[in-house]
């Protein structure tokens, strides 16, 4: 699954640690999600969507969908 997490984070000038602190997860988690090595659970995906004020489908994209 692709995602726009890195772009959204960069737009706010947040480091991975900043985002991790806001989400209440580890920096490794943010890194793994951003690089596509780990797909978050639905609760975490909703938390991410709430933080950025966007619907989930605006952040997480199906494989093959353009970012």
């Amino acid at each position, binding site marked *: 699954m692709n995602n726009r997490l890195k772009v959204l984070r960069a737009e706010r000038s947040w480091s991975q640690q900043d985002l991790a602190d806001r989400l*209440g997860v580890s920096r490794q988690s943010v890194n793994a999600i951003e690089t596509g*090595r780990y797909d978050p659970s639905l609760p975490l995906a909703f938390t991410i969507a709430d933080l950025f004020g966007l619907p989930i489908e605006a952040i997480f994209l199906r494989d093959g969908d353009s970012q």
Partner: protein
Amino acid sequence: MLSVEKAKTPAARGPWFWAGLYLVSSGIIVMLKLTDAIPATVAMILFAGAMGLLIPLVRAGERRNCANPVMVRYNRRFLAACFGYVLGLGIAIALWNTYEPSGPVVFAIALLPTIPTFAMIWAMGRYLVEETDEYLRYRTVRAAIMSLGGVLTIGIFWGFLEMFELVPHIWAWWVLPVWAGGLGVAQLWMKVRGE
């Protein structure tokens, strides 16, 4: 000047230093025992002493990992269980060698090192329950399953080799140290692969 002095204190050493010191100490004790340079009781006492190196190892690891409270609790529980294991094993071997017990007493003696190993497994289980970071939990579960696969593979292969009298008998309690070692190897493998 202050930073130089601080770097020399034991507290400033990294976890790899203490892990290396512990492994070297344990290796020397095993070599001394295998060459019959020291009796089993002395080896057990020395090994218990070497386990003291695990305390600064755990503390150094906690400093490096910014002290995730769940991991701190796990480390301390596991360390306490390790001390209980060495103590229980030492007492059990001493009782076995001194009194030649039989029947229910042997059952009780066998429980001395067994109960702390149950505590180790309980500590691992509690870590999985208490870890709130789903990615770290996923990594641990994945490493545990990979290591379990390794233990089953080695165990089955060894069992048949043993049945055909190609290799010596190995006690079943080895599954835990082999599994714990496999857990470390699996986590290292995931780290090397960038997972």
